[in-house]
């Protein structure tokens, strides 16, 4: 008799979710689904606000990656002003985005996923958390926490606060970096680089042990979307988009994110609040794409800084080019931290960071503005329509996590097929399903524009929809 298992809620991710596993008549896994159960409604209640307030409002979508929203929103505002942002402001925005990438990636790797990776997928759930990690690997845990702190400090030094700074504004940014803060950051960089190199070495040593996870954590062909520079350099802000297919062939290059409607469509499902965007020319199934660290490494030609360059070469050797297993998101995340630290080091030498010419002023010169930025979890789109005075008439967000939705569903299905047999869920299988989701570092509060804190909930249902097993934490 067909059955369904439910994991509700999913833990150690950002937001509320549950997983359902559908079993066929023979008790084998037929399909698993990742449901996002929260709803927030930012696209609705932002209507009627002046567009220049949007960075401050949309920052509140997320406490982990407010900067991504601030920056995408400010860029959408730039487009409405139809004004060029002062070069110093552009560099400062990049600096803050790199702070954001470092702190969010450090959180994902060290705080949320390292317990699975270092303590083991089957270890005791009571200690399989950041506190267990502190006990088992105190040096690494401390380094990871301090790495995140560095990213947060960059944000605080620029925006005046670590969380939700309303610092980037349409036309530029509000304040520069001070010389004292630049020096303070420079002093912190060697330690951060060392931690990142250690984590990379550790992760590479673990890959062999996780061959089952590499094979089953969303190891699927898909397209990849990410930002690149004009010559294909790895980029995270202010550049164009590229789409590659599962063989690594470039399908489209130097796409203007502002024209995303020409190549991205959004589908909805009755069972989740998460939208599922796809690459329009290839349709819903074939056009499914992944974004985020893995996608950014897959779409770029080169990283542009020496240590990250060497790591990218090794990554491609180990994980493939393009890397298809979503387990390698962790690996890609660490390489991106390295790239950011190297670029921050270079950028801190630039005197423009201390400039006071930071904000272009203009009126409403275009009624539609789209802002695109690479958030830690992937490409983020803010699309605003305003009236002649600048009041928001319509808002559309395409959030990184939504774009990974098809791949996350494939990941939980693959893991369930490999590790669940019969109507009860072994603890290790439960955790692997959660861990396969964690690899994407999804942010559900962002992607459903939602509220509340997050746990895991898995349900096993039969073909008639009856609940057979239910595991919740």
């Amino acid at each position, binding site marked *: 008799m067909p059955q369904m298992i439910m994991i509700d809620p999913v833990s150690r991710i950002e937001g509320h979710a549950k997983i359902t596993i559908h079993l066929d008549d023979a008790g084998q896994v037929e399909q698993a689904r990742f449901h996002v159960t929260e709803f927030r409604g930012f696209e609705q209640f932002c209507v009627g606000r002046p567009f220049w*307030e949007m960075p401050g409002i949309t920052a509140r979508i997320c406490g982990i990656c407010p900067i991504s929203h601030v920056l995408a929103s400010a860029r959408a505002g730039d487009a409405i002003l139809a004004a060029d942002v002062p070069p110093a402001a552009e560099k400062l925005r990049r600096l803050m985005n790199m702070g954001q990438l470092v702190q969010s990636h450090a959180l994902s790797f060290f705080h949320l996923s390292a317990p699975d990776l270092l303590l083991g997928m089957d270890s005791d759930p009571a200690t399989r958390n950041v506190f267990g990690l502190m006990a088992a690997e105190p040096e690494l845990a401390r380094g990871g926490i301090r790495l995140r702190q560095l990213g947060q400090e960059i944000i605080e030094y620029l925006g005046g606060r670590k969380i939700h700074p309303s610092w980037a504004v349409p036309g530029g940014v509000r304040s520069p970096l001070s010389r004292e803060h630049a020096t303070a950051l420079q002093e912190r960089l060697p330690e951060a680089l060392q931690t990142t190199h250690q984590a990379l070495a550790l992760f590479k040593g673990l890959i062999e042990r996780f061959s089952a996870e590499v094979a089953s954590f969303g190891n699927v062909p898909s397209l990849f979307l990410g930002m690149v520079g004009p010559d294909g350099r790895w980029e995270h802000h202010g550049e164009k988009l590229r789409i590659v297919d599962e063989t690594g062939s470039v399908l489209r290059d130097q796409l203007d994110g502002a024209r995303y409607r020409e190549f991205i469509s959004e589908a909805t499902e009755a069972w989740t609040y998460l939208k599922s965007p796809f690459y329009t020319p290839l349709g819903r199934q074939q056009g499914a794409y992944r974004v985020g660290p893995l996608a950014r490494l897959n779409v770029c030609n080169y990283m542009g800084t020496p240590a990250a360059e060497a790591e990218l070469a090794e990554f491609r050797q180990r994980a493939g080019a393009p890397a298809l297993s979503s387990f390698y998101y962790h690996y890609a995340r660490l390489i991106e931290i390295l790239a950011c630290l190297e670029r921050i080091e270079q950028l801190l030498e630039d005197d423009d960071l201390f400039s006071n010419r930071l904000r272009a002023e203009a009126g409403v010169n275009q009624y539609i503005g789209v802002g695109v930025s690479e958030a830690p979890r992937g490409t983020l789109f803010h699309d605003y329509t305003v009236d002649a005075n*600048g009041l928001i008439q319509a808002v559309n967000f395409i959030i990184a996590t939504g774009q990974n939705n098809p791949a996350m569903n494939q990941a939980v299905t693959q893991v369930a097929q490999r590790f669940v047999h019969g109507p009860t869920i072994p603890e290790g299988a439960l955790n692997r399903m959660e861990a396969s989701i964690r690899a994407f570092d999804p942010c559900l509060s962002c992607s459903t524009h939602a509220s509340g804190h997050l746990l895991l909930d898995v349900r096993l249902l039969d073909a008639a929809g009856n609940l057979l097993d239910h595991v919740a934490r």
Partner: protein
Amino acid sequence: MSVRTLSINGQQVSAPAEATVLEAARDAGITIPTLCHLDGLSDVGACRLCLVEITGSNKLQPACHTRVAEGMEVQTETPRLQQYRRMVVELLFAERNHVCAVCVANGHCELQNLARALGMYHVRFDYLSPTCAVDITHSRFGIDHNRCVLCARCVRACDEVEGVHTWDIAGRGVASRVISDLDQPWGESTSCTACGKCVLACPTGAIFRRGVTVGEMERDSAKIRFIVEARNQRW
């Protein structure tokens, strides 16, 4: 100038006969919270935050609108007054949509400062969550009725200091709204001189300069008093 002697919180205070209790208290260094009062403008006694107890009267009196009298005994900080004031501020928060975290006046807001000073750490009343418009039709300024507390400081600054009376209040009770001219968009007002005195007078983020973002709406409302005094002292 005749002088009156009274006691405020047991402290002997002298004040000119035409002074209000609020003025007498401030001269004596005693703080009474206010919101609709702004130095330089007439008083209307609308916000009820400056209510004080006066011995011999069973009614609470607004300090901004009560003249000093010989032998008057005033109390400004009784538990009853503190409770009422906090309730007044809670009701103001509940009546419209005040979201400090994303407000242009965050950190520079008299309503926010009052809430903090009066120990308002939550609102006990149901929020009315009304639908309020934002009017940014003016070339330089905007008004967000979500953040308006109907103190009418803008109305008085416009009328008494600029002498234009673009602003007024229409409606009754919770339906009251500040309007420009005959309730038309601010940008279409023919009387507005774009002087910005209403922007100076507003205690919250309700009236703001176009383009300001979270926490950027700083203003010097003391300029209203400066203008009035400077004008009166001219030959």
